[in-house]
């Protein structure tokens, strides 16, 4: 009888002088790695393409997953508030920042075969570990709530009642888990994530001025006025691309997929491809809502309201695509973010944590994943809660929590004791340091605008 047929049991194997326990999770991962080994042995273009297909996944998922409900709302608000200008190249730059730090998580996961939460806890102790987990837990839960808000609002455009929207979203999330195989989960979620690109045709339907678009992309102009709103949008757009859950998710997914140091190059390409696709979708959302610039006040707009406002410009079909894009953004992110929470919980509590686990072996993993999503979904259905509060702060919270998360990433990825031959190269360290400085500066600027508005106004006059 095979271990796959009897998943709850472990197998004792003698390997050389060591006694090794092989689990169901190992066997599933070994099947995936066997395909990679076979593809790697070929030298034809077809083998290379097949190898790439096998190894991509976590990078695209994390980047398109981060194009979530609040992120797409942030981009839509950016377009409606500032039109085509400074923010088009700025958003592309933020994805460059995300690429730099996410590449480090691939390297770390492939070299250590451990998740991010696990490494912080074991290497630096529970004191610093719990701080990181509190940041992650609060950020993930707030973000999950906003994903269900986006789903409810997006499907609300089609007249679907909130309870039905939420149930549908949870059904999709749980269906993705049914196979109990990382590979199948990854491919199903990737297929869903591909719909994020729906914002590109919506942008084309808005008939943008391509000359102005090219000018903005190259010259970063016109510049937005210096003010509180601009700082808030800057912070919100950064928080739409660089957040702590992404670090935890991509490293854990890299480990669960079974990537090794030989695969880092492909992992980097996967992340680059994800960043390029996500940046295209984000810019698409800005361009799509740019015609609303000067026509409406987009303060606290929700998905359905943007779709309604766009209807006279891009028609009922275009507005429907926009609303569907918001729904997709919420669904994919709810899958990846709840998975990130479940991975981190398993790593910290040293309980089994893998999408290759059958339910009876990964009860706590699947319970955390399912309950996080269900709790966030349930909150969205409670009438009268001031949920706009959550939408307002979620991206800002993400930016503010990033610098300490990046410090630990930086320390770990340069730790030769655990990284062996593949510590982070100097150029990547330089860029990561720049990212930390930029994020902290943006956070401080935001803090000054709130705490000392007179000082902020004086800075604007400089």
């Amino acid at each position, binding site marked *: 009888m095979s271990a796959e047929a009897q998943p709850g049991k472990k197998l004792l194997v003698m390997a050389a002088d060591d006694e*090794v326990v092989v689990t169901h999770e190992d*066997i599933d991962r070994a099947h995936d790695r066997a395909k990679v080994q076979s593809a790697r042995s070929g030298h034809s273009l077809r083998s290379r393409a097949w190898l790439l297909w096998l190894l991509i996944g976590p990078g695209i998922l994390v980047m398109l997953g981060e194009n979530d409900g609040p992120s797409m709302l942030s981009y839509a608000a950016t377009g409606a508030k500032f039109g085509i200008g400074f923010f088009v190249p700025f958003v592309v730059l933020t994805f460059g920042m995300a690429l730099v730090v996410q590449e480090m998580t691939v390297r770390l996961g492939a070299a250590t075969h451990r998740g991010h939460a696990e490494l912080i806890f074991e290497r630096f102790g529970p004191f610093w570990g719990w701080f990181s987990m509190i940041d992650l837990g609060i950020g993930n839960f707030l973000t999950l709530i906003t994903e269900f808000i986006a789903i409810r609002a997006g499907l609300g455009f089609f007249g679907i009642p909130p309870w039905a929207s939420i149930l549908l979203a949870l059904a999709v999330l749980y269906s993705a888990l049914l196979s109990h195989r990382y590979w199948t989960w990854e491919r199903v979620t990737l297929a869903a994530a591909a719909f994020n690109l729906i914002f590109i045709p919506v942008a084309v339907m808005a008939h943008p001025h391509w000359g102005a678009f090219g000018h903005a992309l190259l010259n970063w102009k016109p510049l937005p006025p210096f003010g509180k709103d601009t700082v808030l949008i800057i912070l919100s757009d950064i928080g739409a691309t660089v957040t702590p859950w992404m670090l935890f998710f991509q490293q854990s997914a890299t480990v669960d997929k079974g990537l090794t140091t030989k695969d880092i190059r492909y992992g980097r390409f996967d992340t680059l491809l994800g960043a390029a696709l996500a940046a295209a979708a984000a810019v698409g959302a800005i361009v799509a809502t740019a015609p609303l610039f000067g026509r409406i006040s987009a303060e606290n707009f929700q998905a359905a309201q943007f779709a309604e406002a766009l209807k006279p410009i891009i028609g009922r079909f275009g507005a429907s695509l926009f609303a569907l894009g918001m729904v997709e953004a919420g669904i994919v992110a709810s899958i990846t973010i709840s998975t990130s929470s479940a991975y981190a919980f398993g790593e910290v509590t040293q309980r089994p944590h893998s999408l290759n686990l059958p339910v009876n072996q990964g009860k706590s993993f699947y319970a955390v994943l399912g309950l996080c999503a269900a709790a966030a979904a349930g909150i969205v259905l409670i009438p009268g809660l001031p949920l706009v509060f959550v939408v307002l702060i979620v991206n800002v919270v993400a930016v503010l929590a990033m610098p300490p998360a990046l410090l630990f990433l930086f320390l770990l990825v340069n730790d030769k004791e655990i990284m062996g031959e593949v510590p982070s190269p100097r150029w990547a360290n330089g860029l990561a340091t720049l990212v930390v400085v930029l994020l902290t500066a943006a956070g401080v600027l935001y*803090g000054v605008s709130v705490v000392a508005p007179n000082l902020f106004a004086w800075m604007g006059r400089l």
Partner: protein
Amino acid sequence: MKEQHEHASLAETSLVLSTLEHDQLVAAKKEPVPRRKLRGGALVLAWALRVYVVFMMLVVVWQAWIAVR
């Protein structure tokens, strides 16, 4: 070795051993990574960033509270 024949095929066992690196095995991950103490500049930076996060979170909550009211 008797358990091996009861619960898994020999082919699967050898597949695991030939495709996964030793520290990729679930059993190997039970071995903790050695502890490293934060010192000097890294410790100061970690505390400074922690204070920054706590202070800024209070600012966010305050601003959002005013916005909602």
